[in-house]
């Protein structure tokens, strides 16, 4: 029986053009710009200066708080400058710009590809090293992983859930990673299980990746406590709360974290990064990025160094098609439209999606006809039509009562609306304001 989450959901066109494409190593660019804010939390503090020589894997910016992450140099060369550069957020952010010279790695990194199954570190050492390696959630949310692995006092974790769902249309980086690095992901899972002191882990994979389900199920036979759960294809199953609900039927209460129901969720890409950090001593400075789109010549999956300009990736996939109207960092449902193809790849870049002109703009907004489709697709059980009106009228108190902060911004409502109403735009506005009001009240 295929499981799925209980409320709402949609099934957009999958368009997984790059499925089954082997991960190619993208050539190292001549210059990288590495933003110091690539994760949720405080931006890191640069520890290199202009003119410094750096090696691949050398720390260049240090975590500046508990919720923050180290950043390591993705290349070897000289720090050219530390300056504000346009990044995927659409704003200019402080970045470390490095001119590339050769490809000299830190000696401590084990560059062999042999599988290392033996876990020698203790739980505490694993958490510490995960933090040192600058690992953040690679599914796109970029939440520092060591924070998730540190179970707060008073809470208990009894299960680890791995996110191999990749519910965003078009994207295939996690899929391909499971196909090529399945064993590494399973060892990574054991490492995470050890860190969390749990004996059970479930890897949730949607049924449109039958090969990955089969492959991982076969590999997992040798790994105690790890099971593969096939899931019905349904967006937004990769949402943390939806995935927990789908896999083990527990609902994370409003405003709470998964640990409340005894679960911790990590993405499979993150798990691979944890494997590399713990077993190979390799910090996070590269990741798999899908480059895709309806008119892209050679959609594919590329192992890419952080800081590489997006345009290099597009070049590797056959160049920018003539009719491109939009470049999206991430998937079509939750990704960000990029202002330029010069922005750098960061730890959170799961894909680059090129949209042709005709799909780059929205349809004309019409009156709400109260069809209630937004209500029926909302995976959080909210009333998007009402939240939009409340936001337009700036009625924040009522918005809070109507649980606007529960919104996970999956976009199912805007996707579904027959009147093309910008529901999520207004809900985001409301979340910003209501969030501020709530924080000021708590002070």
């Amino acid at each position, binding site marked *: 029986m295929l499981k799925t989450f209980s409320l709402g959901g949609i099934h957009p066109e999958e368009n997984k053009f790059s499925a089954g494409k082997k991960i190619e190593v993208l050539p190292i660019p001549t210059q990288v710009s590495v933003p110091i804010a690539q994760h949720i939390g405080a931006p890191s503090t640069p520890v290199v200066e202009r003119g410094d020589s750096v090696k691949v894997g050398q720390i260049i910016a240090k975590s500046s708080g508990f919720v923050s992450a180290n950043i390591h140099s993705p290349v070897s060369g000289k720090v050219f400058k530390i300056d504000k550069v346009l990044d995927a957020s659409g704003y200019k952010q402080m970045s470390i710009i490095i001119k590339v010279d050769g490809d000299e790695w830190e000696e401590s990194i084990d560059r062999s590809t042999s599988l290392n199954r033996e876990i020698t570190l203790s739980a505490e050492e694993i958490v510490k090293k995960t933090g040192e390696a600058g690992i953040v959630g690679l599914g796109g949310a970029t939440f520092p992983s060591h924070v998730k692995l540190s179970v707060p006092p008073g809470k208990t974790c009894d299960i680890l859930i791995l996110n191999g769902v990749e519910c965003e*249309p078009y994207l295939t980086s996690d899929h391909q990673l499971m196909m090529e690095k399945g064993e590494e992901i399973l060892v990574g899972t054991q490492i995470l299980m050890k860190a969390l002191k749990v004996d059970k882990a479930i890897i949730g994979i949607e049924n449109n990746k039958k090969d990955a389900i089969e492959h991982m199920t076969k590999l997992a036979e040798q790994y105690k406590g790890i099971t593969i759960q096939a899931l019905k294809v349904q967006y937004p199953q990769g949402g943390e709360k939806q995935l927990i609900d789908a896999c083990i039927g527990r609902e994370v209460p409003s405003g709470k974290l998964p640990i409340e129901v005894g679960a911790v969720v990590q993405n499979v890409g993150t798990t691979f990064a944890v494997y590399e950090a713990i077993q190979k001593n390799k910090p996070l400075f590269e990741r798999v990025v899908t480059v895709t789109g309806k008119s892209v010549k050679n959609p594919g999956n590329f192992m890419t160094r952080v800081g590489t300009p997006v345009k290099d990736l597009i070049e590797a996939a056959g160049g920018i098609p003539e009719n491109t109207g939009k470049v999206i960092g991430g998937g079509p449902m939750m990704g960000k439209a990029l*202002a330029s193809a010069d922005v750098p790849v960061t730890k959170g870049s799961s894909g680059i999606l090129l949209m042709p002109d005709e799909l780059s703009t929205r349809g004309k907004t019409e009156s709400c006809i109260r069809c209630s*489709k937004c209500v029926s697709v909302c995976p959080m059980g909210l009333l998007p039509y009402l939240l939009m009106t409340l936001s337009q009228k700036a009625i924040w108190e009522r918005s809070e009562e109507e649980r606007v902060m529960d919104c996970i911004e999956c976009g199912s409502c805007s996707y579904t609306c027959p009147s093309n109403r910008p529901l999520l735009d207004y809900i985001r506005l409301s979340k910003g304001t209501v969030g501020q009001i709530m924080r000021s009240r708590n002070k």
Partner: protein
Amino acid sequence: MSTLTISPSPHVHSGDSVKKNMYGVIIALIPALAVSLWVFGLGALIVTVTAIAASVLFEYLIEKYLLKVPSTITDGSAVITGLLLAFNMPSNLPVWIIIIGALVAIGVGKMSFGGLGNNPFNPALVGRVFLLISFPVQMTSWPLPMQNTTAYLDATTGATPLGIVKEGLANGTSLSELMNQVPSFVDMLVGKMGGSSGEVAAIALLIGLAYMLIRKIITWHIPVSVLGTMAIFAGILSYSNPEAFAGPAFHLLTGGALLGAIFMATDYVTSPMTNKGMIIFGVGIGVITILIRVFGAYPEGMSFAILIMNAFVPLIDRYVKPKRFGEKVK
């Protein structure tokens, strides 16, 4: 690639549109329209064409000259209002009365509130009830089925099954006797009975329901709760006194039960937004319809029931919330 579009996510859309939904409803109404033409012939044709044309024309004129807003007549909603208005009228209704009905439906029922999406009451029913109260004689003389296919104003008329039963019971006739005077259930299923032009064909209306459910234009909640409530309520009454109260099958197959439950109560704009709310709404319609039919002054109460429950929709939406994520007890 000279300029890149920047917009917040999501960057894709389902492709659904107001038009697709409205024309979907129109397609779902076609079987009932066909039966109406078969049973009532020329009269049904004149009534339908007049009601649709007048509704669309009034929407056009009001938007162009009174509201001075872009025209919305192509979205299909005015056509639906006209079609449903026609379905709710006897097929021998004079053209001028139909035009008045369309003016009230579109002008008062819809445009006075700001057009599609803003009207609290089902526009076609506003028009219909206005006519029923203003022209009670013309609105309650129904042509006999299958006998007037080439007649219009001069059609021979007779009572509807609901009317026969209501009047007969009032005169002291027993129900079993009255049941011999009304058409058989098979005739009722295919539409061979007196009634408004579009309400008689049970099978055709059910085909429309199936189509709308498959296309996901509507959900089951409203039709099932309306018809289920009517069946249960009528069943209880009939069980308590079989000689005084007609049974569920009679109530579901006669009058506007199916037309109302499937096409009028499910109007997006005037029905609740949550599944739970839709069920409350449907139960209310079912209860009020049977109350009016059995205890009220009118033989049929579907239109009034829907309009009354339309008035409760804002209240229902205010207090009935969907099942929220995260409230399940472990």
